[in-house]
């Protein structure tokens, strides 16, 4: 992983973007589990659109363009990768546990598929520069309908305000275009899941923004990111890699 002086452009809370991501994986036990998770879930078969289709739609030849990404933009994409991974894992686990039903389950299926497509697209774009995936333990929130919907609202709100927070920092117009096109589905999801939850879908006229430090602090504070798979859930599967 590159750690250059260019990272200083995204310094937040006294840490560079790279350092912040390392902080999330604070135990230093980050595992290369995403590839296995991909294989397990077969998500490329179930996602409504795969990463290839996503980039084809954007006319961005991922592998070629990615080699020219600046360290600044690479760090931001890795930050977004972490965010998308935790969202994808949460909704994927909720779908598999199936403690929810009806419109909530349908939303989990669709949102999960979209988040997995985002993860796949970011992985394709980042290539060898992609950081490793941590493991996740959602501490039972996927097993209880009320806990699920509250957490789902928080995740989709977080996705929107976090992406809005980094868009101005992205240097390459092509990357900014990609991220903007991923941002609005996150905000659509926020409006959708909030409506299902009976929570005001759009309380403000202007979206809030989170810095990377603010978002990573929130995610890290949940306890959802773990150094190794645990088995706290009573329903199967008990963890998401």
């Amino acid at each position: 992983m590159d750690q250059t002086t260019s990272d200083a452009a995204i310094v937040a809370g006294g840490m560079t973007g790279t350092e912040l991501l390392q902080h999330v994986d604070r135990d230093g036990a980050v595992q290369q589990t995403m590839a296995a998770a991909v294989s397990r879930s077969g998500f490329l078969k179930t996602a409504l659109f795969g990463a290839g289709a996503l980039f084809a739609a954007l006319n961005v030849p991922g592998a070629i363009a990615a080699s020219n990404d600046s360290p600044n933009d690479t760090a931001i994409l890795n930050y977004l990768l972490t965010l998308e991974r935790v969202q994808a894992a949460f909704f994927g686990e909720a779908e598999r546990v199936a403690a929810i039903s009806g419109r909530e389950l349908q939303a989990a299926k669709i949102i999960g598929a979209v988040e997995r497509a985002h993860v796949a697209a970011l992985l394709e774009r980042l290539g060898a520069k992609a950081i490793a995936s941590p493991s996740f333990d959602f501490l039972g929130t996927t097993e209880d309908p009320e806990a699920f919907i509250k957490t789902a609202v928080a995740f989709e709100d977080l996705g929107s305000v976090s992406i809005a927070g980094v868009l101005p920092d992205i240097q390459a117009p092509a990357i900014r275009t990609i991220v903007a096109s991923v941002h609005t589905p996150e905000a659509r999801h926020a409006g959708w899941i909030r409506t299902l939850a009976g929570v005001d879908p759009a309380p403000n006229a202007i979206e809030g923004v989170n810095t990377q430090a603010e978002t990573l602090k929130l995610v890290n504070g949940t306890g959802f990111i773990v150094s190794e798979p645990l088995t706290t859930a009573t329903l199967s599967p008990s963890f998401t890699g």
Partner: protein
Amino acid sequence: MADTASRSARAETGMQRRSEFIGGAAIGAAAAAGVVAIGIPAFADSASEGDVAVLNALLLVERVLAAYHRQAADTAIASGDLQTYLDRAATHDERHVDELVAALGSDAEAEPTIGFDDTLFASPQAIATAAGDLKDIAIAGYNGHAGSLSAAGIALTSRLVAIDSRHAGWIRTLAGVELVAPQPTDPGIDAREVRSRLHDLGVRIGG
């Protein structure tokens, strides 16, 4: 036994932390600090030359949204949740217009006459469908310019289009659409395509 106790303790800590997460993520830390309540600072009269055309194109879209939602809200056709949506969308869209006008300053174009085909107000379902379609066009219009705006420009527009996107998810859910937001991306379109799609929907824009 020890493992069970450890997991229970961790879950309890996680529950406490999730409360902060659920509350803190909802509107963004900046919003919680009051930034949103006072608008977007330090952008008015600073639009770069390259941003002016883009922001004026987006201003037109927001004016269309505001006009439609306000007119629909005043028709007395809607009620309940749909009426709540229309009132809120109109208020937010009008705020977006204000923000864009402030950003453009003296470069803001005059508001054209904006009208709509009667079919767009024919029934609650027609209103909900048109409202969702208008939001889709607006989102595509915003995203079509994401790569060409300055950093200050995207800092403004990303915070407006996110709300339009929330509205899209909201109205589609109210309308009972099965697949509310199934696409992983919202591809952008240029200003000419925006006008074309608005026209095809039944929006009439005069000089």
